């Protein structure tokens, strides 16, 4: 949909060699600290600012060659300060752009009603003035004002920055929903990583006028391109995101206790005794997972069977080491298994996940590392926490 390549040196470089292609229907967030050039870049898209060099294309057409006024009428625009006209009714505010485009009155009335329904406000609000609405309601109107003339592209400049967290969340949901339902393209400027992660299909991290990283929210969390991106995401969030981006391979216990099918039950029992475990995984010589035997099987069949292969259970639940914790934790918990073997792509046994491992994951997700707040540890984790806080005390 767009191919934009802009350098913007003007004494001070605000945006430097910015290249990005945005597909139709995408929700792209520009994120960065203040002065990173994110707003500047966005405002060049509807020519509120002009670039020093480079071109921006909208549907293949160079916007530099279009009439800026016409261009802006086909691009929705939402700003942080809401910018509703205080001397116009909500109806007139919503239909501001249609009126500029000289739509017939009837169509405008209809659209106003449609739009106010879209943001779940009562129809009689149409005759009110902006000052009679709360901040959140006003910005809802700000959002639909940017949609009322069937704009396909909507630019939003920190639209929810000034709202309280609850209102902000409601509006984020609304915008996300509108984007998914109406298939509009959004370019959204924010400095709030949570907001970016929640809304976008792709995130553009900017610093000093340059793109640091362009990736999906998952991609950004999983592979922050550099330290700046990592800091912007924040340690807390990286930890919280761990279940959703860590693989089973990263948390499993390596070197699980295993035996081979040819071994006798006596050998198996001895191994169990030596390693203090109640079950053994069974692999062939190449390390391919074959099955599992438990102590009860050994006990029950000790006199009738001779080798491990006779009594091992072949249908067992296992997970791939490359699969995500997020996707597996629930399955593991639901099945009530004590432990699950982990295999690699070649079905070779590489590790084991026990319920204790899961405790670690959940624990980390909630309270982070051991350095985390001692009090919290004490309250929620009896013995473990005592040792943790003892360590913390020494440190």
């Amino acid at each position, binding site marked *: 949909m767009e191919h934009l390549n802009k350098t913007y040196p003007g004494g001070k470089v605000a945006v430097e060699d910015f290249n990005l292609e945005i597909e139709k229907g995408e929700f792209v967030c520009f994120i960065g600290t203040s002065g990173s050039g994110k707003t500047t870049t966005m405002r060049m898209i*509807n020519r*509120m600012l002009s670039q020093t060099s480079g071109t921006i294309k909208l549907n293949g057409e160079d916007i530099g060659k279009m009439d800026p*006024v*016409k*261009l*802006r*009428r*086909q691009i929705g*625009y939402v*700003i*942080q*300060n*809401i*910018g*509703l*006209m*205080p*001397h116009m009714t909500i109806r007139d505010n919503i239909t*501001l*752009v249609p009126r*500029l485009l000289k739509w017939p009155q009837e169509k405008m009335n209809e659209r106003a009603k449609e739009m106010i329904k879209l943001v779940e406000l009562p129809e009689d609000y149409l*005759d*009110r*003035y*902006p*000052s*009679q609405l709360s901040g959140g309601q006003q910005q809802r109107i700000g959002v639909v*004002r940017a949609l009322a003339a069937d704009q396909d592209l909507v*630019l939003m400049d920190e639209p929810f920055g000034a709202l309280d967290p609850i209102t902000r969340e409601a509006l984020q949901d609304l915008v996300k929903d509108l984007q998914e339902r109406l298939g509009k393209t959004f370019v959204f400027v924010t400095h709030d990583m949570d907001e970016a992660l929640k809304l976008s299909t792709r995130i553009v991290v900017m610093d000093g006028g340059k793109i640091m990283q362009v990736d999906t929210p998952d991609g950004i969390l999983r592979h922050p391109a550099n330290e700046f991106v990592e800091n912007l995401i924040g340690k807390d969030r990286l930890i919280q995101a761990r279940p959703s981006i860590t693989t089973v391979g990263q948390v499993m216990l390596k070197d699980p206790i295993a035996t081979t099918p040819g071994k006798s039950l006596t050998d198996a029992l001895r191994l169990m005794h030596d390693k203090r475990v109640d079950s053994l995984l069974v692999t062939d010589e190449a390390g391919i997972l074959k099955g599992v035997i438990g102590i009860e099987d050994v006990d029950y069949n000790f006199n009738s069977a001779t080798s491990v292969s006779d009594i091992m259970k072949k249908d067992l639940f296992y997970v791939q080491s490359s699969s995500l914790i997020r996707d597996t934790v629930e399955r593991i918990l639901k099945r009530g298994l004590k432990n699950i073997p982990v295999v690699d792509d070649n079905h070779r046994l590489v590790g084991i996940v026990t319920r204790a491992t899961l405790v670690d994951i959940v624990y980390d997700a909630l309270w982070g590392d051991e350095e985390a707040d001692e009090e919290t540890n004490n309250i929620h984790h009896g013995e473990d926490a005592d040792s943790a806080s003892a360590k913390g005390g020494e440190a």
Partner: protein
Amino acid sequence: MMSFLQTYGAQLLLKTWQHLYISAIALLLGVIVAVPIGVLLTRANDTVANVVMSIASMLQTIPAMALLALMIPFFGIGSVPAIIALFIYSLLPILRNTYLGMKDVEPALIDAAKGMGMTSGQSIIKVEVPMAAPVIMAGIRLSATYVIAWAALASYIGAGGLGDFIFNGLNLYRTDLILGGSIPVIILALVVDWLLGKLEAAVTPRTTQA
């Protein structure tokens, strides 16, 4: 009082009319010239705006009497030079209030108007002037009061108006004539200010439901 009205009643009406007429035309010209210039100044760069505002301020500092006298070599005597002099006086308050009122419009609104795709003209007419209207009107009210007061001096260069009574009274040591001229000027100024106040309320954009 009654005898004064009996003697000078007809003359009083005529002079009041003249006074009002001179003031109104001067003020009207002032509005027609100063408001658009004030609006345009917001689109010019700051240096230009400062220069224009300085010139207007400078004109304001010329003593009223001197300015009236200065008109005579160019426009002779009568109501025309008086109107021109008063017009010059009316400029500054209107110009300054228009400029400041327009500058004071919330930048977010102007940004939104532009971002929505309004042309500069549409933004001025539909957004900026309505928002600045109360401030502009305050400037016009101020100018109106000045102009009416100073129009009394216009009789000095033969423009007529209530100043005739006052000057006659001064020359003849007649207190009744001085008062007979001054009081109507005051009343006129108050009434006009009150009327313009009504107008100001009317042009102030509504921001809440009735």
